[in-house]
């Protein structure tokens, strides 16, 4: 299978105050064409260093990076990819069209085609109202929309998104997520997305990798990773009246406040449990099921 991105044995060491530390340690990743791949990890885990290594801004000690079948040392391949981060800035004195025209020129898009493409992107990313404003005067949300427009100029086959929703208002972050989905679905663009927002990645990514202290700890589909680490989930039952503690104990529950709690095995059947409650004369007012999220996995990971 040809991958959109292959990272093989990448190791990066930095020195700080005479002390060496590994920012990346033997990183191996394969990202399939057309998928959204989430790279998750806490701050300082190595996500941005890996992104910077992929684009060649950081030089690794060891390892190889292949983008769309070409080594990342081959600068020609960069015409086929694009990327943005939470810290995507352009020159403060330029207007959106100046910026888009500059990048269109860099990507070698012919003048007429570039103008059509720019007009199309202005419509898609709803930046008509800011065309007369200089970049320095744009709000965070407007900057992000412009950044996305720039990122789509060259119709990239691989899009690198480094914490694209960091610091955005919730509604702008939500819009951004929709844009990411749209780009992936309609343009079949492969996306590598780094984030420390678990829900975001869970919502968007087909597969994820967890990175912590420069090491990939886990890789797989979201459901597989969850199943691998969580074979239980929480069940909260609110009865009309709290039954006798012996009854509660006999059906494997425990009393927590005004509710009954049970740690359920993933394979356990909920209807069987409900039947059991009914059998013991427990009238149920409300049921809550809390399945583990990637967030829980992340917390578990951080505790290790």
């Amino acid at each position, binding site marked *: 299978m040809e991958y959109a991105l292959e990272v093989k044995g990448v190791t990066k060491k930095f020195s700080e105050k005479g002390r060496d530390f590994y920012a990346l340690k033997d990183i191996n990743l394969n990202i399939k064409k057309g998928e959204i791949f989430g790279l998750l990890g806490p701050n300082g885990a190595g996500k941005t260093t890996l992104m910077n290594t992929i684009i060649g801004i950081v030089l690794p000690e060891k390892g190889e990076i292949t983008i769309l079948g070409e080594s990342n040392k081959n600068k020609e391949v960069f015409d086929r990819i*694009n990327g943005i981060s939470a810290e995507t*800035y352009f020159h*403060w004195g330029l207007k959106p069209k100046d910026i888009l025209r500059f*990048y269109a020129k860099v990507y070698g898009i012919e003048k007429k085609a570039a103008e059509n493409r720019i007009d199309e992107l202005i419509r898609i990313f709803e930046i008509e109202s800011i065309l007369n404003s200089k970049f320095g005067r744009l709000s965070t949300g407007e900057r992000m929309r412009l950044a996305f427009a720039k990122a789509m100029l060259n119709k990239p086959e691989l899009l690198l998104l480094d914490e694209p929703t960091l610091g955005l208002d919730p509604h702008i972050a939500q819009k951004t997520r929709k844009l990411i989905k749209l780009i992936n679905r309609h343009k079949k663009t492969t996306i590598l997305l780094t984030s420390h927002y678990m829900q975001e990645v869970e919502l968007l990514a087909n597969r994820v990798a967890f990175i912590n202290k420069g090491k990939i700890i886990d890789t797989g589909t979201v459901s597989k990773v969850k199943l691998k680490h969580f074979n239980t989930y929480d069940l909260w039952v609110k009865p009309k009246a709290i039954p006798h503690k012996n009854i509660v104990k006999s059906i494997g529950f425990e009393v927590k406040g005004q509710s009954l709690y049970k740690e359920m095995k993933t394979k356990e059947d909920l209807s069987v449990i409900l039947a059991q409650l009914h059998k013991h004369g427990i009238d149920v007012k409300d049921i809550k099921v809390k399945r583990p999220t990637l967030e829980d996995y992340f917390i578990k990971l951080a505790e290790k």
Partner: protein
Amino acid sequence: MRWRKIRSLMYRDSLVIRRVSFRILEIIYFPITTIVIWGLFAVYARQMAAEAGLIVLIINIFWAFAHLAQTSSNVLMMEDIWSGSLKQVLLTGITEFEYLVARMLTASITSTFMVVALITLSLLFGINFFQTDLIFLILITLVGSMALAVIVAAMIFYMGREYGFLVWSAIQLFIMFSAPFFPKEMFPKAILYLSYLMPFTAVFEAARGFSVTGTVPAGLLWWGAAVVVSYFIISWPLYYLSFRRARKTGMLARMH
């Protein structure tokens, strides 16, 4: 006007001056170099009062040209760093060579336009600098400035964005040791030898000679050309090495 706010800002400024070493350098460096240059000129002008005005004019033109050509190349680069857009530019696959060459070409065009404007304006004072020899001197100055732009870029990538002040300050040192308004022989011996290796010594000497005789000795043109071409050749490996080091140490990523 709220004095409390002003005082708070002044306090912050004093902290910045104490904490950021280059601020001290700026405060001491520019006054000292300026005094040395003009002081030596004052001594020289006592002997050559007649052509002094013309010399001041032509040297100022070359000085301004050299300064503009180098600083505008580097300021264009620094603006990418300051605005945080360097990473976006590099993401397009632009190489470090293309990146700097583009800036050098832009700066060459703008500064050549400026020098032509200055020489044209000199005609208003009855002074005609439009001579073939001077065009060669302008070319030599341009190559020297571009070589310095590459060296300054190398230094910034090596040391980090906080050394951006080198964009304006580095050339002043080279100009001072290039003996702009006075013969290099006025320097003490050790500095005299250093002056032979400066990129603009031959340019300034030739320009002063032109003010007096109306011609430029070919020897000076060759010497000037040889020095700036050497600078140019040496500057690029330095730039490549420091750019590579910036990628290795993470400096480039921190610059944005």
